[in-house]
Structures are given as structure tokens and as C-alpha cells.
């Protein structure tokens, strides 16, 4: 409890400073200022803090990492902020984290090395400081987006001179949009089914620079390096890159991480939040299966039945027989079968993830930070966040800091929300009783269901409270009753200044238009006076996360004398941390490096057992593996049992082999 009151104190202090020093327009540091600050930190904490260059963006900006290392060889936590380039508060939070780690948190948290990248996408981040203000996370690589004869020739223009790129609306027979009744700024799509006819066409603010009839179709930049990672990369998109890892920023991060095998966890500060909404668990990821059919052509060659399913191990054997190639591995066989990559978290990783999410939500609740707000952004393809889990194989979590608060709707009843149902067990849900469940079904608008069916499905295992919550989330409304986008409406209610009122403008090619709409970055930037508080209230959860990492011990050592100088040595390798090492997905992709157990001692001879015992996975909360050797050594010698791996704190256990002195 002491810790929380301390951070609360710090938060209060920062709040006070924020009040005393009224925040100016430049609440966020420019890329240059961030770079300068990193240098200052490195000088102030020389010996611990070092700044290194990871890449240079196409806009010639530095992608830098601040390395905080108290002891070489410690496992490391990698934190990257703003990889998508459109979330300035994430960068501030990363700087704040570094500050805390070097200051008030320097105790046990610094037994990890921290690699902090405050700006993953410096070109994108720099756009926040550009004039006119234009929201985009693209880097500055010139791209011929419209495939004409030039690149970047038709970007937006600030026609009304307000310093912002907003929208233009033009009355047009083809228009699909209408203004919301009684509201001067909000727009909505006309719904013909409700008798509404479209009035306006919408464009982003600008002119047709190249005379091709299109407005702003080939603006400055670029690709988003935050969508350029090689997991679930979106091919043939205008913004993700020419191929995975085509962007320097992305390659820089990839290379840096593979050069640092000591990284045990990856964190991202961004618009995503993988603890608020946990990605669904493993459903039908092909690679997780263990039985496969063999494509007809290959089956014929191998002389096996193409209609039969084979166990993977069986196939490996059959393939070795058929090819005579003894070194054939399961991976090679999988590749022949054309199996696809996993796209959902491994089902054995999911429970840990969910538990951590629960802890996160409790943390928010305890600190009164759980007010209703708009959802975090959905995870895009090619994200850092997914790549680090699916391919780099470490625990990876993304946290966002702010979205537009949503006014709590008046509660008519006890309100069975998705969150509440998720927390319930199946039995608890059934215990609500028929009437309540029927009322719930009616309210959800699902027809053709009744309480008995739901109860039956829950009892029969076809349904679970988790699934109900998931279904509810999917059904959550994206439009308000009046037909406006829920998020637009929330923004309007939160801050009317986030909109530029529509004003008439004479456009060179479109003629009469109006310019207005949502201001750039309105959805991602909280009021400047609240930024520091928002960060300092939420950042302590990072401590909690670091304290859940795997942590190893060697215990239960038994020494049994077999003959005068021969000993049977047994020991347990135990993971006392909460999280397994590594993830099950990591085990599948053979990343990170395995734990290796070995013995050392003067003049010892291993009669039985391996010199090095690799362990590719150890569950958390006391997960263990027994190791064993038969060792020949002189009476009274000492023996070291060692646990080593780049991404864990290495452990050494010394024992003395002495007659009558087992243990």
C-alpha cells in the first residue's frame, strides 16, 4: 500500500506543478526536444543511461533508444512508444517512465535493464508539430500513391487559413452525408431506410494539385512503420509499406530486438490496449493443430492416404522414411503441408493474459481510473504489438493512456454489462435465475432465445460467460440513436472545441463548399492540463507488470550417494514468477533462447545425464522441471548447478557432496 500512496503523492506533486506552470501549446516535446532530453538523461545518469541510434527515418529523424542498465547480463524490458506515430501522449509517457525508473523506482525494478524508445515513428510523430496541422502517422518516404507520373504531388492545403487540415463538404446529388439535426458540426451518413437523402460529399481540405480530378490523393509520405512488421502484414495497402520490414524504422526495431536476446518482455505505449480488451484465444490457428491431412501430390509420393489425418510426429517419421533424410524436422513437414501462421494467442498463454488484464482493470478501479471511455484502437495488421508476441515470442502488452471519455448512461437496472458477465462463472450466471436472464435477453435485442436455452447451453459447455461477453461486445453499438458515429458524438459532448464550425469557402474546382469538422488529433490528445496527471496515474501499473515476470530458483536438491565417489544429483528448476518463460507461442517459434541447466565442479565426471539440459518452457507460479545427473566426483567436493539464459537472471546453486551430508 505504501507504494500506491507514494505514487499518489508523486501524482499530486506533478499535478501541482502542472497547475503552477500552466501548460502552453507545446505540451508535447518535438522530436528534436525528445532527442535533447535523452542526451541530458544520459549525461546526468552516465554509467546507467546510454542513448543509442536504432535507425534514421526517411525524414532524416533519429529513432533512438535510451538504455538503462545497472548490470550487464540482466534481462531487459523493451518499451516502445508511438510506433504508429499518431499518439503524442505515448511519447511523454515513455519519457516519464524513464524518469521514474531513474528516480523513485530505481530499487527492484532496476534489476531489469530497460530499453526505452520514446518515438518509434519519428516522422509520423513530427507531423503533430507541423503547420498546418494534419493527422497522419506516415513517414516521409516519397510514395507515388496514385501511380501517376509523380510522387507526393497532391497533398492537403489549409484553404481557410486556420492552421488545421479538416474537411470540406459540398452539396452534391451524389452526396451520402447529411448534417445532424439541431447540431451545427456533426455529420452522419444518410440512411435511406429512414427516409433520409444524402446532401453532402465530403473531402479532406485541399485542392486538386495535379489536375487529375482527385483531391489530396497523393499527399506527403509515406508508409506507417507501425504497420510494417512481418506478422499479419497487410499486402497491397497504400500505407503499410511495400513489403513487411520495408521501412527503415521497422527494420531498425527488428534488428535491435534480435541483437538483444536478453529482452524478456515488450511493452508498447500507443493507441492500442491489449489489457483492456484481450485478444480472443486460440480458436482454429492451423499451426496449433496436431493432426493434418497431406496434400494429394505429396501423399502419392509418400504412398499414404490423402484422405486420412496423420499425427504430426507420425508424419515426420513417414517423411523421414520416404526421403531418407534423417535431419527432417517437424517444421519442415509443416511447411510441406502449407500450414498457416497463428493469428490468435496460444490457448495456453491466454489465461495468463486474461489474469493480467484483470489485474490491470482492478488497478484502474482502485485508482478510480475506470470511467467509461471510447475503446482503444483495434490492433492493425503488421503491428509491433502482435509481432513481438507471435514472432519474437515474449510477453507483449500495449497500453494506451487516453481516449475520449463517454458520459455514463443512466442505469435503468442492475445492468449486466459485458465486463460484469465476463467476471462471473457460468454457475453464477445461471444463479441469476430465469427472470433476470430473460430480461437480459430481451434487452440485448436477441430474438429466438430464451433463458432455458442459455442455461442449457451453459451447462452443456456450448456457451460460457466469456463467450456471452464477447458476443455482447461485438453487438455494441457504433451509432447513436440519431445515427451519428458513437465516437463523434462522444467527442462532441466532451469538447465542443474539438470541432471547427462549417464555414463557406469558394473552392477553385468544387465551387461552393464549407470547411469544418473534427480537428486533427482531437481523438488522441487529452486537454493539455490533464496530460501529466493521466500519465502519472497510469504508469505505476508498469511496476506491477515487471513484478510478474518469470523468476527462477533452483531448489529441492537431493544428493544420493550411489557408491564411494558416485552421486545421483537431482534438482528442481522452479519458476516463482507469475508468467511462464517464455510464452507458448514463443516455444512454438523457438524464441527466445531456452533455459539451460548445467553442472560445474572441479574434476567432476558426468556418468549419466546431459552436460547441458535445455528447457524450452517453464510455467509460472511454481512451474518446475526436475533435472538429474549421475556424477562421479571425490568426496567433499563442491558442485555448482547453473541455470542460464540470456533473458533471465541466471541462478547458481552450490552444494557440497559429502558423506552423510546429503542436501
Amino acid at each position: 500500500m505504501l507504494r500506491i500512496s507514494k505514487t499518489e503523492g508523486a501524482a499530486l506533486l506533478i499535478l501541482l506543478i502542472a497547475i503552477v506552470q500552466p501548460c502552453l501549446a507545446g505540451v508535447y516535446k518535438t522530436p528534436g526536444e525528445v532527442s535533447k532530453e535523452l542526451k541530458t538523461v544520459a549525461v546526468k545518469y552516465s554509467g546507467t543511461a546510454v542513448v543509442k541510434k536504432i535507425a534514421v527515418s526517411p525524414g532524416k529523424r533519429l529513432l533512438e533508444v535510451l538504455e538503462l542498465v545497472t548490470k550487464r547480463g540482466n534481462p531487459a524490458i523493451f518499451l516502445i512508444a508511438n510506433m504508429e506515430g499518431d499518439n503524442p501522449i505515448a511519447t511523454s509517457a515513455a519519457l516519464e517512465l524513464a524518469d521514474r525508473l531513474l528516480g523513485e523506482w530505481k530499487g527492484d525494478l532496476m534489476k531489469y535493464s530497460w530499453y526505452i524508445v520514446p518515438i518509434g515513428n519519428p516522422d509520423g510523430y513530427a507531423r503533430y508539430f507541423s503547420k498546418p496541422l494534419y493527422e497522419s502517422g506516415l513517414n516521409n518516404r516519397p510514395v507515388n500513391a496514385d501511380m501517376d507520373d509523380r510522387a507526393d504531388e497532391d497533398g492537403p492545403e489549409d484553404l481557410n487559413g486556420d492552421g488545421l487540415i479538416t474537411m470540406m463538404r459540398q452539396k452534391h446529388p451524389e452526396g451520402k452525408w447529411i448534417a445532424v439535426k439541431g447540431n451545427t458540426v456533426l455529420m452522419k451518413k444518410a440512411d435511406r431506410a429512414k427516409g433520409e437523402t444524402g446532401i453532402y460529399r465530403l473531402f479532406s481540405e485541399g485542392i486538386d494539385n495535379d489536375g487529375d480530378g482527385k483531391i489530396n490523393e497523393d499527399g506527403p509520405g509515406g508508409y506507417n512503420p507501425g504497420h510494417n512488421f512481418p506478422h499479419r502484414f497487410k499486402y497491397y495497402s497504400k500505407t503499410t509499406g511495400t513489403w513487411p520490414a520495408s521501412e527503415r524504422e521497422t527494420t531498425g526495431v527488428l534488428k535491435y530486438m534480435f541483437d538483444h536476446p536478453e529482452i524478456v518482455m515488450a511493452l508498447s505505449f500507443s493507441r492500442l490496449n491489449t489489457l483492456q480488451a484481450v485478444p480472443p484465444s486460440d480458436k482454429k490457428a492451423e499451426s496449433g493443430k496436431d493432426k493434418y491431412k497431406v496434400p494429394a501430390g505429396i501423399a502419392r509420393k509418400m504412398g499414404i492416404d490423402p484422405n486420412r489425418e496423420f499425427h504430426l510426429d507420425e508424419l515426420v517419421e513417414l517423411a523421414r522414411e520416404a526421403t531418407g533424410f534423417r535431419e527432417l524436422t517437424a517444421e519442415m513437414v509443416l511447411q510441406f503441408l502449407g500450414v498457416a501462421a497463428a493469428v490468435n494467442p496460444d490457448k495456453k498463454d491466454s489465461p495468463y493474459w486474461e489474469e493480467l488484464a484483470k489485474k490491470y482493470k482492478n488497478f484502474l478501479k482502485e485508482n478510480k481510473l475506470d470511467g467509461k471511455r471510447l475503446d482503444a484502437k483495434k490492433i492493425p495488421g503488421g503491428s509491433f504489438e502482435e509481432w513481438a508476441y507471435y514472432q519474437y515470442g515474449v510477453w507483449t502488452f500495449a497500453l494506451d493512456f487516453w481516449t475520449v471519455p463517454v458520459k455514463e448512461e443512466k442505469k435503468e437496472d442492475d445492468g449486466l454489462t459485458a465486463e460484469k458477465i465476463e467476471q462471473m462463472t457460468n454457475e453464477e450466471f445461471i444463479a441469476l435465475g430465469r427472470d433476470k436472464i430473460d430480461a437480459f435477453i430481451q434487452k440485448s435485442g436477441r430474438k429466438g432465445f430464451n433463458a432455458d436455452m442459455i442455461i442449457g447451453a451453459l451447462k452443456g459447455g456450448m456457451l460460457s460467460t466469456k463467450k456471452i461477453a464477447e458476443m455482447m461486445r461485438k453487438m455494441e453499438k457504433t451509432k447513436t440513436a440519431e445515427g451519428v458515429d458513437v465516437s463523434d458524438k462522444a467527442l462532441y459532448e466532451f469538447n465542443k472545441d474539438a470541432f471547427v464550425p462549417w464555414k463557406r469557402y469558394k473552392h477553385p474546382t468544387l465551387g461552393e463548399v464549407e470547411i469544418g469538422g473534427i480537428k486533427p488529433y482531437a481523438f488522441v490528445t487529452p486537454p493539455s492540463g490533464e496530460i501529466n496527471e493521466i500519465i502519472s496515474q497510469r504508469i505505476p501499473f508498469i511496476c506491477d507488470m515487471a513484478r510478474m515476470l518469470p523468476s527462477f530458483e533452483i531448489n529441492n536438491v537431493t544428493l544420493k550417494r550411489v557408491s564411494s565417489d558416485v552421486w545421483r544429483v537431482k534438482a528442481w528448476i522452479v519458476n516463482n514468477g507469475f508468467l511462464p518463460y517464455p510464452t507458448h507461442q514463443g516455444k512454438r517459434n523457438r524464441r527466445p533462447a531456452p533455459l539451460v541447466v548445467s553442472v560445474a565442479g572441479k574434476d567432476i565426471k558426468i556418468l549419466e545425464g546431459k552436460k547441458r539440459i535445455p528447457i524450452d518452457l517453464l510455467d509460472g507460479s511454481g512451474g518446475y522441471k526436475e533435472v538429474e545427473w549421475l556424477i562421479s566426483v571425490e568426496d567433499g567436493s563442491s558442485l555448482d548447478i547453473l541455470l542460464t539464459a540470456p533473458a533471465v537472471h541466471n541462478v547458481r546453486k552450490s552444494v557440497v557432496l559429502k558423506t552423510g551430508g546429503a542436501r
Partner: protein
Amino acid sequence: MKKYSIILIILFLFACLLPIAEAGKVKLSFDHYYNGKDVVTTIKKLNRAYPHLTSLKSLGKSEEGRDIWLLTINNPKTGRDTDKPGIYADGAIHGNEIQATECVLYLAYYLLDKYNELPMIKKLVDTRAFYIVPVVNMDNRARFFTDPGGYNIGRTARVPYDDDHDGLIDEDDFEDIDGDGEILQMRIKDPSGQWKTDPNDPRVMVRIKPGEKGEWRMLGSEGIDNDGDGRINEDGPGYLDMNRNYGYRWMPRYIQSGSGDYPNAAKATKAITDFLVTKKNIAFVFNMHNTGGMILRGPGNNLAGFYPPRDVKVYDFLGKEGEKIIPGYRYLIVKEDLYTTYGDFDEFSYASLGIYSMVGELFMSEKEQYRGPNEKPESSAPAGWWGKTSDAEKQKFNDNVNQGAMFRNWKKVRHPQFGEIEIGGWRKFTTRMPPGFLLHEEVHRFSSFIIFVARHTPEVRLELTGIKDLGNGMKKIRIRLTNSSAIGTLTYRSIAKNLTRKDIVTIGGSGLKVLSGGIVRDIHFDRVDYVEHRPNMIFTAVPEFGKVDIQWIVKGSGKAKINFNSLKATDRELIVSF
């Protein structure tokens, strides 16, 4: 007098140099393999002998610091390379598939050597640009010649990787136990083994039938258990298969073994990708390998997406011609006829760069058959997994056609872990590659196929097909673009996915106002797809064996300049006066 003598001496020297320059037309032979150094000195020699037609450039360095060489063949007198359709061909992305290098080296040599002799070659070299990377995997192809090895060893790039996931990297390679410079097979006497010697030929190993008594157990390739984990040779240097490391549908290792940490993680794949994006004129890519006697195209996997039927037609036309140019070779599709691959080069160049691409798998075991006319293979000796020639038949070829050069007979050796074993087997320069006397034909025929394809890269003619006076000073101008080749100016995949800029056809001239313009869909009924904006600029692609008609309505008089600007075909210009 002195002056004259100096001039005479100079003249004399010059006269001496002339024949050298002429004879400097290097003579290369293709009855043997060029080792790592020989390849480099040879392409440098070619470059020196043909300075006006070739240029040499290093695309970057390999993992072990060797230059990855690019030889460009282009006649600058007929234009810049990027103004002509380009053909890219590389070899030995897999270090042990060595004759892939001889193939593209031969292609370069043949184009240069026959330039003055064969009008077809001269025309081709003058109108096309050739980009030849003789060796992609510089390290392992060089080591194939110098290190103890076997025909299956050295496929990948030397990027360290912990293959057996034991925390140690590259700690358990092969060993040349008997010190003969080759890594062959190990066998051990074992009555419970699954193999016995062929009663007709003791060199040949035969699988026992159920119930038969075994004689031998096969132990795999020569080597020892270096790291004491009970396995041999399970973690050799590297394992990054560069032909699985390119950026289209790249997959992590648990899906695609050898794919590397991320796309373009190898030096050569990165260097070649970076090079290819600078040469938008490349219209065809060849990626050379061994073995199997195949001309391959994608898709390589289920995710490779749609191959538009007209692209398939282009491939089919060329592939079927290839089957005739190289008898015995089959034109096949990777995913359907072989197996699933992700991140391979030809799929990348086709699907991401928009270039028609093919793979050549040189040599096949059928070339080592030993049969009389109408004779069928012996049924008692089953053929191997890849090949169609049994070991017993191959031994007869070895004895009677190759005088025993291909096989090292079993001999007793002491192995530190297995004890007494025997080592023997097919030698390094066999099985995946032809003996020298077959090499020349092999590389000539495949090069001829590449030359055939090169002749079919787009060749577009621009002609005026009509001017019609519409009165009021208005005129209708029609032009036609005709492509006589089997390859269009853009792939259909490229058009569908916006991979490359289309051809741009423009009309301009002082005193000329372009009122309208567009592609003519039907010349007889005057059906035109008019372009609303910028009608002076028409974006199009000229299809294979096809044409595009374009029409403008202009006002004014004088001269009009019509320009065809294409990335993958030579630009054309036409002046029309009216």
C-alpha cells in the same frame, strides 16, 4: 626522324594491341565448374574484354564479406539500360546448387561472344538490358569448392542460428571423419538395421523388405556429436534459406523453416531487393537452381493470391516453349506440383514487384540413365525420392560413362562415438549436377530459353492510324501501340494491385488544345473510354501479342508530339503535323 620513330613505335604497339583486344574476346569453356574465385575473375575478364557492352558492380557484401557481383550487359550506344526492357537472372541463391552460376555465366558469355557473329544476338543485346548476378550465395558457393562437403551441403546463408534450440549457436556441424575432403554417408553393421547391400552391386544400399534380415543402419552424413546432446550434425553454420527470406508472404520459422528472423535479413536478399526496386525496366526475372529438370512458376502457397488468367497464359506460352527448348524439362507450378514455399524470390518479384518470374531447376537424374532402347528401369531397385534413376542404374552410368568418378566406395573408419563404421557414397560434384561433359549442353539449352524469353520482353511500336478533320479547327487523331511480344508492358497482377506505374501516352504541341482523349474500345463503332481530367495524358498497358488504340480530339494546327513512355518497354515518339 625521332618523331616518326615514336609514332611508328606507337603504331606498332597499337597494332599489337589490336589483335589482343580482338582476341580479348575471352574464350570460356563449360565442361567444368568455376569455383568462388574463378567466377569473380571470369566476370571481371568479361567486363575488361567488353568494356563497351558491360559494367560490373558490387551490390553489397555477403555475411563473410564477399562482394555480390552484378554484371550488366547493355549497349549504351543504343540507349540507357533503364530505357530498355530488362532481364534479370541470378544463380546459386542456394550455395550447393552450383551450376546455376555456370548457367547465367554462360548466358552472359554467349551474348557477348556472339554479339558480332549472330544478328539475332546483336539485335537482342542492342535492344534489351541484361542484369546478371552469377552468385547470390557467395559464401557457401565458394565454400562448396574449398570446404569438405557434399552435394546437399551449403544451401543457406551463413547467418548464425540455433537450429536445435539448445542455447548454443552453430555448434554441431558435419565433420570430414576420414579426411578425404568430402562429407559422405556413414553406415554401421547392424542386424536390426533397415538396409542391406544389393546382391548385384555391393556399393548399392537397398531397403529390406518386411521379414528380411537387415545388415546396415544408416547413420546420416559424416560427422560427430560435437555438443554431447546425442545427435549428430544438427546445428551447422547458419540456417537462413535466402530463397525463403524475400518479402512476399514471408513466414516465421515455425511455418517456413529457414525463413530467417524477418524478410531481407540476409545480406544478399536485402541487396538484391534494393537493387531491383531501382530498375523498373526489368520485365522478367530468372532465379536459377538445381535440381530436377524443371521450369517453375508460382504460386508457391495458398496465400499467394490470384494469378490473373492472362498472366497464366503468358507463363504457359513461355513455359511450354521452354519444355521444347530443353528436352526432358517440365514446366510446373511450385505449390501444385512440388510443395508449399513462402518468401521465395520468384513469388516476391512477381507479386510485389510486378515482374514475370520463373525458376530454373537445372539437371535431372534421367540424364544418368543407363538403358537400352525401349528398356524399362529395373523394378527391383526403386528410384529415389527426387530422381527417376535408381542407384543401381546410376552406378552403371558411373562405371561405364563416367569411369567411376562419381562414387566413393565404402571403407572402414573408426568413429569416436559409433566405433567401427563405413563411409562412402555419391561424391560432392554429382547427383544434383551433371558431370562436366553434360554441363555445356545443359547451360546452353537453358540460356537459350532465357534468350527466347528475353526476345519476348515487350517491344512496342507506335504508329499514327488516322487523322480526321471534324471541322471548326477540330481534329481527331488516332494512334496505335502494338506489342509483338509474348510479354505485355505490365503484368495483370501488377495492374490489379497497382504495383507499378502504367505506361503513359501523351500528346502535346504549341497551339494545340486537347479537348478529349481516351482508349478506343472499338475502332469501328467509335467506342472510346474518355478521360475526364488531363485528357492529354492516357494511362495504359500494351498487352502481349496485342494493341492499344488511343484517340484524341484536338483543336489547333501545327505539330503534335505523341509520346509513349513505358517502364518496361522502350519509349517511342511520333510527330504528327496537320
